[in-house]
């Protein structure tokens, strides 16, 4: 047993950032460290890409009935043999591999969606190495996630110039009730935002406080993801917060342009997807918080929820994968 526990298997990928495109072979090596020699049956490597959907909590109300019902969507599943049965000598052994996700001419059922880790939707690609050792020994195995980004060839050019959406936020654009002093005093915040945005680029735009009678305490840009799943005949949609970025701290000067600049967090965001059974979309929510005693008394909760002392503006955000820019590889 001592030897068995001392043996380790690892899958090491050729790229440290583990990002691959579906047209590229996934390369790397299986690293086995063992004190003794190991006899094994054929060593296999399998790749498994799938969209996992689940519904929990939230808007539907009758959650229990849906829970666990949805079957994962298979994107890719294949197994190759990297080494036929034999013996591994003691010490460190490396077995290189190269695995094509998609053979030329091979037709696949699903698109290679980009890796995405959301609340209800998970798009994940796993690489698993299996070393079966007959019935007497436990098989050894190791799993490693790799990340899929869209293929180079079918990507659009980066949108130049990006489409800027002009927005203005006043007491009259608010669909929720405001404190009377805010409502009567009035305020006006204008700006523009690029609502189509490349994943490699920061979300950019600008914002100007033109007027506000009640002092402002904070202006924040919230990134939201909207995951929708078709369950039976219903669509279950959940909106969740990814990241908040403050762009104004305190009652800023009027008529000074503030930049909106948000670097998009990796893995938590992916190109907007509209597949049959599910969709992943993104939104930007701009919140303006006004000075109010109520705000202090309120415990922290969802910062994008409409409040009496807050003005909101939600804008859709379309994320696209463009040709590589200079930052990433």
């Amino acid at each position, binding site marked *: 047993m001592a030897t068995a526990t001392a043996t380790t298997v690892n899958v090491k990928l050729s790229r440290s*950032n583990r990002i691959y495109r579906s047209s590229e072979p996934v390369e790397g090596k299986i690293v086995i460290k063992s004190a003794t020699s190991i006899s094994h049956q054929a060593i296999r490597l399998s790749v498994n890409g799938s969209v996992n959907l689940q519904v929990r909590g939230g808007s539907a109300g009758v959650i229990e009935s849906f829970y666990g019902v949805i079957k994962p969507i298979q994107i890719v599943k294949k197994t190759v043999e990297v080494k036929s049965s034999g013996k591994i000598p003691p010490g460190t052994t490396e077995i290189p591999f190269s695995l094509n996700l998609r053979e030329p001419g091979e037709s696949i059922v699903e698109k290679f969606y980009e890796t995405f880790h959301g609340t209800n939707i998970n798009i994940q690609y796993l690489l698993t190495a299996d070393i079966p050792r007959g019935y007497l020994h436990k098989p050894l195995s190791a799993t490693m996630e790799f990340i899929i980004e869209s293929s180079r060839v079918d990507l659009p050019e980066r949108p130049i110039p990006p489409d800027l959406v002009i927005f203005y936020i006043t007491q009259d654009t608010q669909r929720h009730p405001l404190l009377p002093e805010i409502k009567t005093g009035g305020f006006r915040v204008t700006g523009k935002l690029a609502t189509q945005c490349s994943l490699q680029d920061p979300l950019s735009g600008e914002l100007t406080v033109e007027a506000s009678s009640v002092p402002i305490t904070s202006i924040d840009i919230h990134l939201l993801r909207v995951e929708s799943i078709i369950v039976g005949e219903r669509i279950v949609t959940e909106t969740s917060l990814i990241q908040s*970025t*403050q*762009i*104004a701290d305190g009652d*800023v000067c009027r008529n*000074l342009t503030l930049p909106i600049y948000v*670097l998009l967090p990796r893995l938590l965001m992916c190109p907007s997807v509209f597949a049959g059974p599910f969709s992943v979309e993104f939104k930007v929510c701009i919140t303006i918080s006004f000075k109010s005693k109520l705000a202090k008394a309120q415990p*922290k909760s969802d910062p994008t929820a409409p409040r009496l002392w807050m003005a909101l503006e939600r804008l859709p955000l379309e994320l696209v994968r463009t040709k590589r820019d200079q930052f990433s590889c």
Partner: protein
Amino acid sequence: MELEFRRRDYGATQKSQFLPRSQALKHPLSSTLASRQQQAKTVRGSDLDFFDPLRGLDVNASAEEKVRDTSISIEAVTQDLIKEWKSLKRVLMQRFPVSKVISFSPISNIITKRSKVEAPSALSHSEETGSEQTSLEEPAKIINQQEYIAKVHELREGINCAWQAEDRVKSLKLSIKVTKLLMDTTVLQFYPTVFVIVTDMLDMLGDMVWERIKQKSELDVDGTVICSLLNDFQSSDICLEARETCYNWFCKVGSVRELLPRIYLELAILPCWRFLINQPMEVLDRLVMMVRGLADPLASLYCRLYMVHRMQKFGFCNSGILIKCIKDIEDVLAPVLVDKEGYSYITDDKKLLFSLMEPAIEYIVKCLFLTGRQENNVLGMLEEFGFGRNKFQSSCNSLHVSILLHHLLKELPSELVISLATEILDMIKCTNDCSFSQVLNYRLLGNKLSEGKSQEGFLSSLIDEVIQAASQYQSLYDYLRIMDAYVDLMLQNKMENHLDALLDDIVNLARDKFLSEEEQASLQSIILKLLAHFENLQEVLPLNHFIEILDLMSGTSKSSVNMHLLNMGTRSGCICDSTTVQFLFEVSQALYDATDFVNIKDDDNRQTSHLISRFVEMVDYGAEMERHLMFLAECREAFNGIHELKETLVRSSNTLAVKALKAGKKHTNFVKSCLAFSEVTVPSISSPTKHLNLYLETAEVALLGGLISHSDGLVMSAVEYLENVALTDGLKSIDVDSMASVVCKFCSVLVMIPGNPEKGVMEILKSIFSATCSSSWATPRLKVKIFCAIMSLLSTLSQDNLPYHSANPEIIGNDLLFFGDSSYKQGLVSCTQLVLSVLLDAIEQESSQIARGNMALEACNCISSALVMNEKVTELCLRLLETAKDCLGANDRYIESTKKSLQL
């Protein structure tokens, strides 16, 4: 065997010892005087050429040309800035001392409450388990400032440790927490200190990140060097892996929700943008704009300060960014300056706020000018602030905040100030807010104008405008402070009319008013400038209302001005003009009245008394000698407390007497009054040696005037005083050497004074001797010296021809008076015996061996030169030599030479 004096032929000795003399063409000291003047001139000349790295403008070159000439290399600028930054940090830490105890709002709870990772052992469990969120009811934590700083340093150490342990995520997390401390501006005075500590930490973090990414691009996975980056590398030289890491850092920093720490952290790793892009101009622009999101004036200003520092440090700066930055500062300050109703008023809080802001603004403006000079674009830069345009345009774009205008003006080279003077003046007029005193801006303009050469033409109208602006201030103090800066300009450019107007104004404003201390100080500064400009007093006194203005002053300012007046009056030769004498006398009197001479004895008093004495010494009434003596008497009465002056008075009156004597016989009565004045004045002098000296001096003068009874009287007074010194011993002030020299002088004066046969010829000598013997103040060394002097005197008096006589031919010397009188010579011999009898004892009393030896030799030499060497004298000398040998050893050179001269 009888003692016998050596015969002397003084005339022959003088002839044989006389040194050959030759005529000199030049006074040996006169040339140095001339060269010193020259030197002074060059020093003053070079003053104008003084190269200040921040201004550095030649007087002759036109402004723009010069700006081009002095443009400097980036390295030099960077070096300068590193120094500037260091000194700024010191200033920030020192200028704003903090009260010991600080209460913190919940935002700083990284300090009062720390999470487990930092220092688990030091924390109590309740704190560990407490949630990050602080409820409103929780009172603000109270913490000591030192504790606060110590904790930040501890955290910094934690960041460093985590980094060394490859735990960079933790390092970053801690850094974010520390940076968040800057969000708290509740304790204003403490903010600069926190800023310095936190930015130090950020600089450190930035360096570590930079090094790590650089290493990643230079080394491969195994740590072998694959390439080495040049200083001016391109982003394309960087391998993908390193760029990935770098971008990752920006993502991590960018994910911080709060604006302030996000900006600071990006600034910390700002140089790393170079790994990704070659010209991070867009980044800089964005950062400048991002800071606008910080509404707190202090926090945003310090954030800009750090931004400018980081940009400068890595050569990213350009004047465009800095100009934007300064304009933003102006926008942020606007609401602070003016409240909602449109009033601008100053409160203590605002005062504190602006004082905290000032160093930061100063640094940023300094950077702006450095950058502008580097880019050869100072003028263009100024245009951005509304300079050099016509008036219609400038009103919309120029600076409106006076603290900014002040620091901008401070950095402007004086040549530019001169060429833009009228516009600057207009600008100062427009910016009247509470951030900085407008008065000081007017002053700064004046000082800057004084630095350079300017044409009188435009100055005249400019100063007119300034005077007008200044007189709009209701307070005299403000008026004085402003005009103070323009006095030099008026003087340099000979603008008498303006000067007259200024003095008029001062009198009008200050009339019938009690001037406050500040007003006095400003007035003092103005008057001192006037005094410094003019060569002598005669030019100053006729100035418009000058005396009247002097009368306005009081207290220390008045004294200071008076000192300068006195100094000026006594600067050049003697003072003959009676009005000047009267004026200076009054000045001296005021000075004297303002000083407590009785109780306080310090350097300041010494200077005052020295000046007054000097003045009295300098006064010269010429032929009106009686008037002069009266003046001296007046002075004695007026300045009774100044000891130093009494000596001057006696000397002056003696000089006066000598002058009268030289003028002819008819003045005998006047000479007598002078002597009487001196004789009366001397007793009030406390220093014994001075006292004696002056008696002797006066006695000599009396002798010169042929007034033997006077001189006798003075000598007797001197002897009595010597005896009294003996009585009032314990006087510590007696300095042995000067006492010895006074008594020696006494002896030499006695050579000239004819003996009084009625009282006994030796009476005076014997009195000196007995006073010395019986005194306790005389140390053995002093005694031996005096005894030797007496012995020499006795030997001299025994000669047929005295070495010198009184200059008055009517006075007959002892040589003639007692020629051939054997009892006189007998008296001299017996006196000598008396001296010899105590001399040896006195030597034995000396405790120091070396001193004793030397004294023995001294006495031996004296004896051998005074007396003929007969058996008795030889024996005495041998005994003395023996003593010397015991004390000094046989091989002493003094003993050798003494032996040789004794021919033993």
